[in-house]
């Protein structure tokens, strides 16, 4: 029954095929299938499945659709998995299906994006949205010297993890860098071309723009591409517009190397995936996570109440080559 090929992971080449079928199975649910961010996370998930000898299913709808995501979780509960790790598209909407899971003794954690008002046991993230938002804000403020106009670029106007970061960043700037003005927030709807055109239009709209902050994976490279082009075309000077926010190292490598981007915040989604499976495995064994615990392939984690953080890195041209994703 292994038609799933690419994504079903009955621990290929594992030591005991039998062990896998009698042991636990987890459903790890990203926001959607397809985006490379999630593909990177999938690697960690698979690796953890292999290392721990558990079956993991990594699947999601092809778009970030909350209803379809919940349907899929429901289907996997029917399949009697032992644990689910969900990156919810709508943090409120998953509440009923989570309590349903709990009533069936299925362990539930969220990862990458939290649903705090639900029955989930833990949230696994690189840092909290508030921390990240503040980190982005501080980074851009520093780069532009504490004053000037910046614009925010998000992947979605309705995704909780995006809006939470934006709110935190805005509040942080107001409190700590009152001279930094956030002129607007634009959304790419997860479409790279739109992100790129948004960046172009922003550069054109605000001649005195000093910074662009990317809140999701596709934004920073699009911003960098647009800035680089504007510089090459002689429309703006090199270094006039700074870029901060989140980035996937492999996507911004060339921009870091050619100086279009100075530094970015990053984290490895595969570590999030690994930690998620690891945590579910502990929970289903009746154990628990501890603050400062070492997780293989991930490193030490911070546990703060029901939040597990794997930590972030600052990406610069000196270390960008060290990241394997």
């Amino acid at each position, binding site marked *: 029954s292994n038609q799933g090929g690419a994504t079903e992971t009955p621990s290929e080449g594992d030591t005991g095929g039998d062990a896998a079928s009698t042991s636990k199975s987890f459903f790890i649910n990203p926001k959607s299938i*397809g985006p*490379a961010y999630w*593909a990177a996370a999938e690697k960690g998930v698979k690796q953890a499945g292999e290392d721990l000898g558990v079956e993991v299913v990594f699947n999601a709808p092809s778009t970030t659709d909350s209803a379809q995501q919940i349907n899929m979780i429901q289907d996997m509960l029917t399949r009697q998995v032992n644990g689910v790790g969900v990156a919810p598209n709508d943090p409120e909407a998953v509440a009923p299906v989570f309590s349903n899971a709990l009533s069936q003794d299925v362990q539930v954690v969220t990862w990458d994006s939290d649903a705090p008002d639900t029955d989930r046991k833990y949230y696994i993230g690189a840092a909290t949205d508030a921390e990240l938002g503040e980190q982005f804000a501080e980074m851009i403020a520093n780069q532009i010297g504490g004053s000037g106009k910046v614009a925010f670029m998000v992947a979605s106007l309705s995704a909780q993890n995006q809006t939470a970061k934006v709110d935190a960043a805005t509040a942080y700037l107001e409190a700590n860098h009152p001279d930094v003005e956030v002129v607007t927030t634009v959304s790419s709807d997860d479409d790279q*071309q739109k992100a790129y055109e948004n960046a*172009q239009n922003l550069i054109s*709209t605000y001649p005195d723009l000093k910074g662009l902050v990317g809140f999701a994976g*596709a934004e920073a490279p699009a911003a960098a591409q647009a800035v680089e082009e504007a510089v*090459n075309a002689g429309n703006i000077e090199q270094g006039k517009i700074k870029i901060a926010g989140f980035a996937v190292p*492999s996507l911004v490598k060339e921009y870091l190397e050619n100086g279009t981007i100075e530094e970015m915040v990053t984290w490895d989604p595969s570590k999030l995936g690994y930690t998620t499976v690891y945590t579910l495995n502990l929970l289903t064994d009746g154990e628990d996570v501890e603050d400062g615990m070492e997780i293989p392939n991930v490193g030490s984690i911070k546990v703060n109440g029901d939040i597990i953080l794997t930590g972030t890195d600052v990406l610069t041209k000196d270390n960008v080559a060290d990241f394997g994703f």
Partner: protein
Amino acid sequence: MANIFKRREAPIILFTIVLFCIFSLISSNFLKPDNLGLILTQITTTGLISIGMLMVILFGGIDLSVGSVLAVVATVVGMLVNAGINPFVAALIGMVVGAICGAFNGLFIAWFNIPEIITTLATMFIFRGIAVAISGGEWVTNFPDSFNFFSQGKIIGIPVPIALFATGAIMFGYILSQTRFGRRVYAIGGNKEAAKLAGMSTRKTKFLVYISSGMLTSVAAVIYASQVGSIQASTAGSGIEFTVIAAVLVGGASIFGGVGTMLGTAFGVLLMGMIKNGLVLTQASVYWVDATTGFILILAIIINTVQRSRNLASREGDLV
């Protein structure tokens, strides 16, 4: 002069001009040459795809698969250039791939007689799956600098994307309005049965149109890849079919086929691009962008309809 207003494209051209003026009034940055250049660059991908879509719509068909074709070609071309293949060779291979996708659509539509919307709905899903499978779910990125030619290069002083779109539009505008093949497209869209009786091969013509459409989409895909710099097969170009269809229809084409021109389509594309750019430039609240876009679209449709009924009212007949 009076003739100009009778043309089918007149309302959309006027509308575009009016909107242009409004944006210029609201935002001083809108009229800057840089920004105008920007708008032109930004419309090149949708523009190139619209040319193929116009021909498909002239047949009375519709092509929902263009976004997925774009993803397939962009992925293939991106992987090829990253594998060290010369960008121009890669682009040519991409066009072959696009042509094959088009031929696949054409085969089902022209030979197996499956309605366009059904075939292309299916291939929209299928091609997208193929694109992701080819990419292995990975981002295709970090292209060599030489690949930048397709977004930043210039041919006789004109940015390459604009030059490609302009060439495509003029070439197909000419083919559609001045050659036997082009008039066949209109004839078949106007009355398929009559076209058959006049001895035209509707199959062959349709097949060729789908292949051209695939190739045009692949040129767009190359520009896309070069402009955006990174391709995510699962999302690249998804939803672009709506923008493109909207542009063609707003440009005066009829979904029932036979009616529409390259000039109108070009203005439709321009209008769509201008709205997108203008709404950012006028600093409209981000939450209002979609609503305003939709409203302007509907306005454009209304204006087109008014024009059409005015034309119909002038129909010769029994004391209308």
